[in-house]
């Protein structure tokens, strides 16, 4: 992974820590999760679970093995039709077990370097788990290494920027919070 896309971590606003965290990042390629995961110190990897879309990663033996076997991902339902229950339930359970999460609040891959609008999941998690640190992560160059629709990545030097924990503002509206969260990633670009 390091050889191929050189996922080099840059801890700009915080240091690696075993404090419980939600890492939220811009989503630009299929290898984003792998990139953040490999940028984390190996001691933290076991306690950090990426969140992945069930409709994509549960398809086919290879994807399922990679998502569940290798990355220990938490799979969630993306589309409203498939949902039987609260889509955030698996995430809440993981956080209750004391694990950290990697999430992509845009919900889908963008084609630009900067993230698009966030879905509300991050807001609800923030409210349900007031003690968990929210760490913005900006993935640089991954959208170039593996743009939407290609099979194999090209080896570019990709940098994973970890920002300062997002401050909590009491009585902030959902929209304001999500925009502020998005801005914290843009600020790392």
């Amino acid at each position, binding site marked *: 992974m390091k050889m191929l896309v050189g996922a080099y971590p840059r801890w700009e606003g915080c240091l690696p820590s075993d404090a419980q965290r939600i890492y939220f990042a811009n989503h630009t390629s299929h290898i984003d999760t792998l990139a953040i995961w490999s940028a984390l110190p190996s001691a933290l990897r076991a306690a950090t679970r990426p969140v992945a879309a069930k409709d994509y990663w549960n398809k086919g033996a290879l994807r399922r093995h990679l998502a569940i076997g290798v990355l220990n991902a938490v799979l969630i339902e993306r589309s409203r039709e498939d949902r039987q229950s609260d889509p955030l339930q698996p995430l809440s359970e993981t956080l209750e077990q004391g694990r950290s999460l990697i999430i992509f609040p845009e919900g889908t891959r963008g084609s630009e370097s900067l993230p698009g609008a966030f879905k509300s999941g991050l807001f609800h998690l923030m409210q349900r788990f007031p003690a968990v640190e929210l760490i913005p992560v900006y993935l640089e*160059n991954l959208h170039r290494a593996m743009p939407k629709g290609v099979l194999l990545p*090209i*080896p*570019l*030097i990709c940098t994973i920027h970890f920002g300062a924990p997002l401050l909590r503002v009491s009585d902030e509206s959902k929209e304001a919070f999500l925009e502020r969260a998005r801005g914290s990633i843009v600020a790392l670009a």
Partner: protein
Amino acid sequence: MNVHQKFYWMMAGVVTLLITASLIGAILKSKARSDSKRAVVQNLNSRIRAWWVMIAIFALVFLMGRDATVVLFAFVSFLALREFITLTPTKRGDHVPLFLSFFVLIPVQYLLIGYGWYGLFAIFIPVYAFLLLPAFAALAEDPDHFLERTAKIQWAVMVTVFCVSHAPALLLLDIPGYQGQDALLILYLLLVAQISDVLQYVSGKLFGRTKIAPNVSPSKTREGLIGGGIGAILVGGAMWWITPFSPLQAMGMSFIIVLMGFLGGLALSAVKRSLGAKDWGSMIEGHGGMLDRIDSISFAAPIFFHLTRFFFA
């Protein structure tokens, strides 16, 4: 003396040089008073440390033989191309040509050296790659800035793969009376080019006044070039005994390496600046990226190769 004896003598010289440099670095460190001086000395010391690592890797690979040397340079090309493309703006439509550059052009170019197919080695990139890469890019149907994008990829491949591959290609030369010793020519090229860089850096820091191209490469001065260049030519002449050249011919070859190395540093510095960067990367401590270290070799290798081939092989 056989190849290995010559090699060990050269390494003894290089290690003595590095020990001296490390000692001077340590003395300067204890003497540096102001913050700016300390920063310069710190950079100097990390450069010297990086030199130890680079020399160790090269010596090991040299002793492992011909195939290992070719693989080492393939690896260098890979890292250099990765740095070049990382800094170069590319678009979605460039994905296939870029993928081919990394995973087809580099292996094929170096396999051709490994198998000793000189004819195809010399034209594979300038003819086949340079015609096919833009054709594949065109299939992506994005005409936006097509010429610029094509030029960027071709120039990246030219500098990091085609040019660099001429250093290990010295192994293909069949020089009368010099059979089995070609690997020493690679060592010669690398040493003269790098000693020239180092002496230009040192002599520029000590005596540099007149900048040659301040907008492109502010650290290059006329005093640095002349002082460092003369030094490197003398060192290159003194190493004639590991080459098929006479002492005077060795000085002539060193002059070419110094000149091309200087021009390579200048041209690639301009490319780097046009991309808005100061260093190509950060993988070699104190030096910047791989390309910062091999820019001079990239320009010197093909000319040194062809002059040697024309006059001596």
